[in-house]
């Protein structure tokens, strides 16, 4: 039962972040490979201020501010660079932020992470967490689904299909990008206000590159742009990821095997979904 509740918490706390990433990468075809960079900013912003002031309100407000700034920065980069160049640069920004967190030990405690993360008063047990995070995930999924099906979603699709045509129809690319990045940033904020509380720990290893590959795998396997598909693939892949812990193997073997397995799943997913991921065919 505990394991089942744990899986529910893991899935529900990941949902807002993954769906935000799906909006950008799956629906908008924007090569934002730094969603965990925004997550680092969100998590450290919220909990450093919360611990310093003993106030969740101030912590979340600070988190919202830094996430907005980080999202606006990524949006600016996406407008400034070619799509693939932005992909590489967003990874660089993510790794740069991780380097700052790991090296600014006086503030972040570096690789040790921040222990004894405070919890909301109403989140006492794993069951409380499972219920609350599921409600948050469900509400956020509905909001994003409505946005995706509404005029904003259509603008995003139009820009991803043919930027010039979309612009000629009056779609403002900078505005659409900024809104999409801010929405993804809010998703990161929602995920990261809950996840460290659940673990009682804010640790930089949770924001490494394998975490990003998990996000890409979820979006590609679920069907890029599809909210329902992403939710389904997130559930299945989370069961797989968490279930692997029960294989009786040494951690120094299990860790690399997990990397290989998720790399293979991503490759197969891209191979099967390549028409959905990038439907355009080269003519020359």
């Amino acid at each position, binding site marked *: 039962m505990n394991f089942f509740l744990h899986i529910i918490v893991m899935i529900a706390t990941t949902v807002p972040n993954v769906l935000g990433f799906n909006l950008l990468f799956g629906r908008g075809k924007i*090569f934002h*490979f730094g969603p965990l960079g925004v997550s680092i900013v969100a998590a450290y912003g919220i909990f450093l201020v919360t611990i310093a002031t003993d106030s969740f309100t101030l912590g979340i407000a600070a988190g919202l501010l830094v996430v907005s700034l980080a999202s606006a920065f990524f949006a600016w*980069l996406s407008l*400034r*660079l*070619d*799509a*693939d*160049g932005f*992909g*590489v*640069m967003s*990874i*660089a*920004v993510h*790794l*740069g932020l991780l*380097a*700052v967190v*790991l*090296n600014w030990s006086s503030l972040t405690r570096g690789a040790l992470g921040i222990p004894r993360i405070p919890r909301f008063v109403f989140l006492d047990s794993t069951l409380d967490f499972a219920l609350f995070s599921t409600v948050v995930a469900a509400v956020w999924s509905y909001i994003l689904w409505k946005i995706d099906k509404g005029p904003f979603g259509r603008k995003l699709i139009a820009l991803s299909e043919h930027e010039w045509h979309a612009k000629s129809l009056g779609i403002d690319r900078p505005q659409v990008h900024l809104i999409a990045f801010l929405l993804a940033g809010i998703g990161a904020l929602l995920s990261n206000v809950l996840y460290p509380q659940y673990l009682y720990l804010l640790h930089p290893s949770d924001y490494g*590159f*394998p975490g990003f*590959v998990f996000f*890409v795998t979820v979006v*590609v396997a679920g069907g890029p742009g599809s909210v329902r598909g992403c939710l389904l693939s997130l559930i299945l892949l989370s069961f797989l990821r968490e279930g692997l812990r029960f294989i009786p193997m040494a951690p*120094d*073997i299990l*860790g*690399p*095997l*997990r*990397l*290989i397995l*998720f*790399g*293979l799943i*991503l*490759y197969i997913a*891209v*191979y099967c979904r*390549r028409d959905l*991921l*990038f439907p*355009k*065919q*080269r003519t*020359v």
Partner: protein
Amino acid sequence: MQLLANALIAGSLAALIAGGLALVYGVLGVFNMALGQLALTGGYIAWWLHQVAHLSLFVSVIGGLISGALMTWLTFEVFVRPFYKHHRFLPLVTTIAWSMILDGLILLVFEERPRSILSGGKSMIPIGSALISKEQCIMIILTIASLLLFAWVFHCTPFGRKLRAVVQHESAARSLGINSAVLHRVIFIVSGVFAAAGGIFIGIDQNLSPTLAFSLTIKAYAAIIAGGKGNIWGAIICAYAIALLEQLLVGIHWFGAFYVPAGYQQTVALLFIIGILLLKPSGLFRSVSRTA
């Protein structure tokens, strides 16, 4: 002086990798995100041949380069070729998957411990007020020789003219009878050999560690983006510039008050590109492509 020497050493490594990659981007228009892992594979194989199989250093280095070529060929056939004609952005995702697989394989086979191809201390040669090891001198000379050879092939031989034709306009080159498919494969493998040479360079000069892979990749692509995508010489110049900035950042006693911790060194490449993007979004030395 020592900072300049260190920049020359680090820049040679980055230039070696970035030069080959810039050519790949110029011709195929794809990013290979598994490049750092391919570089490390070449280095680890050379380490294994020298330290475990006890072969001579020369044979081990050749073995490392050949393994780098074979791994890059495999990368091209499985993770790039089935996708890049479909859409040139797809290999960006598939090579990320391959980088994860290679990361796992490197950890399983070679473990997380640092590995050095040469054991024991290195004899240092004083050059001015700087100290450089004999191995570093040889590697800098070999890097510059490789880049000059590459320049000669690219600019002065029939093969180089075919390459430049494909870079400028692939369809026109094909209509002139140039087999672009073969050239794509050759260029990709050459970039992998350069990367493997970079990995062997690290293994001889410092220690090989699985965690180095992504910083290698990012640094090489930083040089490519800053140099103007597809411009080989722009990428090489920027690779040296980034290395110099990295050394200056951590080596200077800033305002006589503090040193920047070495952990921030890899963020320099990022700051460098952001600065350049503010000034010139298309890169410092953007190639002017023919439109007709």
